[in-house]
Structure formats: C-alpha cells, structure tokens
C-alpha cells in the first residue's frame, strides 16, 4: 500500500525476475543486514569492549603522573592481590550485600502487597499507579537531596515527628548505628514502586478461569492467594527479585549525596569505593582492578542465574 505502482509492476513477471533478483537481493540484503547492525556493534565495541580491555591493562600497572606525563610500571597481579587485604573493599562488599538483600526483600513484600491491593480494586487504579510511579522517574540524586533534608538532625521532619511522640532526636545519617538503615529506608521508598509495577503487570495477566474454578470449589480468599496466585506468580516474583537485586548493586547516587560512604565505613558501597579509589585518590590501576573484579562477579552471577532459570524452564 505504501509502494509506488512502478515497483509493483516490476514483480509482474515473476519467472524472469526471481533468479536474477534473488542473487542481486541476496548480496544487497547482506549489505543492509550488516549495515543496520553496524552502529550498535561499533558503539558496543568502542564504548564497552575497548574500555574493558583498557581497564584490564590498567589493572596490571601502576600509573604515575610526573610533569604532565604518565609513566606506566607493570606490576602484574599486585593490585588483585592487595584487593584481598583491602578492608575498605571488604566493608563495601559486605555493606552492599546487606543493603541489597534487606532493601530488595522488603521492596518485594511491600510491592507484592500493593500490587494485590491495586489489582483487587475497581476504581482508582490509574490514580494510585500514577503516584506510585513518581519515585522511579525522579533522579536518584534528588531522592538523596530530599531525604538528606528530611533526615537532618537540626530541622529534619523525621526528628520533629520523633520529638512529637517523645523519642529523642537522632542523627540518622551521621551516626554509624543508623546510617546504613537510613540508606536502606530511602532505597525501599525509591524502588518499592518498581517491584509493585512489575508484579502488578504479571498479576493482570494471570488466567481468570483458575480463580473461577477455585471459587466453585469454595476456596477462601486466603486459599486462592496461597494456592493459586503465589504459585502462578513465582516465576515473575523470582525474575523481579533477581533483577532488582542486581540493580541494587549499582547504588551510588543516594550514597554519594546522603553519607558519602560514612560515617567511618558504615555506608561504603562497591560503586562508591571504585569511585573513591579511581578518581578521588587517583589510583587508576587499583581502581581498574576493582572494576574488573566487580564486573567479573556480576557477569558470573548473571550467567549462573540464567543457566538455572533455563534449566528450570526446560524441566517443567
């Protein structure tokens, strides 16, 4: 319908054109096949593969800046060896694991609850969804700014509220007892809506006839939740959980703004340690070794998880 009549006319005598045309269009197809994929390949190669190689090479060297020139000294695996003894890196891995597991677990429970509630109401779904979406779309650094003000020891609204019910004000971000928990609270507030959205999307695709069958058999609300909804939702729950868990490893913006990794090492997370080593301390070799290690670890997790889910998928 979009094509001009002259081009239609060309295919009017198929016999003569097919052979001729297919050879011609084969090489032309190949040309366009390569051409259309080329930009993505070039971009990925230049900006992800090359930098990875760059990091790998950097991680084997010490780089010194003297008189505006950089001198590279090959140090072998020294940086990797010192990673194992780096107490800051260890603290940041531990913090990131605690942060990700606790925050994402709470997000899943709350998100699932909200999704169940939202899918069971008739009016106002759009209204609630609009509000719940807002935190996902706002820059992480602004979420940090908002909560930095709310957590403030002197004028923050949390201490005002605590004061109103007779609790002593606390330094939520500056006291190592609460700092990681405070960051976790912010992340829960930030990302629960994301879990909500994904779980709601898959709740809305569940087959209704199973519920009708359950109703006929006299299933209570709790029974149909426990024996129908949750089993049917398990794949979606697993995917959302793993997806969020890996993304939680990226956390940087909020930590940068709220605590800068402190007090002490109480909120030091992996991204922040890499940033600190590479840029603040200007140790590119060591920072690269950290990047490569993190990259390898996350890559490994993804490969294992997708292998497991694929096996599960083919078994059932």
């Amino acid at each position, binding site marked *: 319908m979009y*094509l001009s009549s002259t081009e239609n006319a060309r295919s009017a005598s198929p016999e003569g054109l097919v052979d001729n045309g297919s050879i011609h269009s084969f090489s032309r197809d190949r040309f366009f096949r390569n051409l259309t994929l080329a930009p993505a390949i070039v971009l990925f190669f230049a900006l992800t593969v090359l930098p990875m190689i760059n990091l790998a090479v950097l991680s084997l060297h010490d780089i010194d800046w003297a008189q505006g020139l950089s001198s590279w000294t090959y140090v072998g695996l020294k940086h990797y060896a010192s990673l194992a003894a780096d107490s800051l890196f260890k603290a940041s891995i531990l913090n990131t694991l605690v942060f990700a597991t606790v925050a994402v677990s709470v997000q899943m429970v709350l998100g699932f609850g909200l999704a169940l509630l939202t899918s069971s109401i*008739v009016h106002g779904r759009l209204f609630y969804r609009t509000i719940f979406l807002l935190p996902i779309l706002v820059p992480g650094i602004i979420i940090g700014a908002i*909560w930095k003000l709310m957590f403030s020891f002197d004028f923050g609204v949390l201490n005002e509220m605590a004061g109103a019910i007779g609790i002593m004000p606390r330094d939520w971000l500056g006291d190592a007892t609460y700092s990681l928990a405070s960051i976790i609270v912010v992340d829960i507030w930030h990302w629960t809506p994301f879990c909500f959205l994904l779980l709601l999307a898959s709740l809305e695709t569940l087959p209704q006839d199973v519920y009708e069958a359950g109703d006929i058999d006299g299933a209570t609300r709790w029974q149909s939740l426990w024996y129908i909804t949750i089993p049917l939702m398990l794949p979606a729950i697993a995917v959302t959980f793993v997806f969020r868990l890996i993304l939680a490893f990226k956390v*940087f913006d909020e930590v940068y703004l709220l605590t800068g990794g402190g007090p002490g090492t109480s909120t030091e997370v992996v991204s922040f340690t890499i940033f600190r080593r590479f840029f603040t301390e200007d140790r590119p070799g060591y920072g690269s070794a950290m990047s490569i290690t993190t990259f390898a670890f996350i890559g490994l997790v993804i490969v294992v998880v997708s292998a497991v889910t694929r096996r599960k998928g083919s078994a059932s």
Partner: protein
Amino acid sequence: MSAAYGAPLRPMLVRHGLLLIAAALVLFPFLWIVAAAFKTQIALLTGQLLFQPTLANFMNVLFSSTSDYVRNFSNSLVIASVSTVLVLAVATLAAYSLQCMQWPSWVLHSLLGWSVIFHMVPPITLAGAWFSMFRTIGLDNTYTGLILAHTTLNLPMALWMMGVFVRDVPKELIEAAKIDGAGTPRILRHVIVPLVSPGLAAAGILSFIFSWNEFAVVLTLSQRQTATVPVAIGKYAQENTIAYTEMAAASVLSMLPAVLLLLIAQRFIVRGLTTGAVK
C-alpha cells in the same frame, strides 16, 4: 481481577484506606521538598509549618550570578535529547537486523547477552576507562563524549524493548513489501517504524528520563561547562554550608520533566518499564 466486582463494601474501603496510606507515604517527601523550596532558610531551620512563601530560592537558583543552574538545565536537555534520538536510531536498526535478517543465533545471543551484562554492571566501573580514553582523544568535558556515554548506557534497554516490538511485527507484512520490491530502507521507513511507534515512544521517554537522571558518569566526565542537573544538585550537598532551601528549589525544578512525562505519557512509561524487565 473480576472477583472485585462482587466484593462487599467494607473490604473495598479497607483496601482503599491502605492504598491511600501508601500513596501518602510516597507523596509526602515530594510535598515536603516543595514546601522547603518556598521557605526561607530560617523558616526551614525553625520548622515552621505555616510560613510566608517566598520565591527567593527559585530566583537565586535561576538568576544569581553564582548559579550555573540554567546552563546545567540546558546541558541536560541537549544531552538527554540527542542521546535519546541516537539510542532510538541505533536500537531500531539493530533490532530489525537481529530479528528479521537471519543472523546466526550466536550473533543474536552474544550481542543480547553482552548488553544484559553491561546493563547490570555499575556504570562507575566503566567511567574510569571512559575518562582516560576520552581524555586521550579530546572528548572529555564535551557534549559529544557525554552523549556517546549516555547512548551506550541506554542502548541495552532500548535494544531489548525494540527487539520485542520488532519481533511482534507480522512477518507477512515484511514479506509482502519485499515481494513488492521494497528494499530495506523502504521497509524500515514504511513498515517497521509506523508499526513500532508505540515502542519508540516508550523507549524514547525512558531513555530521556534515564539520561536526565544519570549522575555518576556525568560527574566523572564533565566539568563546569558541561555539567548536568544531577551534578548541580550534588554540588549543593558538597558545600561547607549547604544552602538547603536553594537545593530544594533546584531539586523541584529538576523533577519537572519527569512529572510532566508521567502526566502526559504514563501509558508508554508503564509499557516500557514492564517490557524491559518482565520478558
């Protein structure tokens, strides 16, 4: 769920009550920051609930000679828009190529697999390498460098989404166009693009928002001239005496694009977020 239609009134009220509490918890920080943006520093520090609203914070953020905010805002607009256009072009071409042009399956799988891994890794791991590479070829502290970085960061998401949308285009339409003698450029322009336009809208809006929000990479690759809005907010927090109310005003201004897009294009945002992750 259809069961809801027969539900009695009281559970319905309970559900709405719970959802309203959740909505209030989500909204409260936003309302609080908006209020803070209209307060004087003294009103904020003394925790006044009733206060005389002032526009001084917004005036300072926008017009004070020491504030770079307007430049940061226009930097963000340029970088987010240009990188979004690039992401859409590259991802649509690649999605068409991968889904419709008989690549061996190892090409498809290694490209998509690599993009998933890259998407999951903290951007800061690559920022160091980008920094040193860009400095070598003179792209540090330039729009070009930042745009390329954001295009790469958002490419996996767009590639994934456009792949799903292109896959759903009926193959018969493409075959019919080929029989009519249309070459790849015509098929792309007249068959694929019109049919995947909802996908383009979803991927485009998300790519714009994610570029607008991105902080770590811009922080490391930019200086004063090319810094974006998130970096400007980050700067406020680094000062010795933080101008809290100005930080609040700048934050409110920086949220406007997201709020606007949420109100006018929620459908596409939801579709984008759920296609990108669930499938």
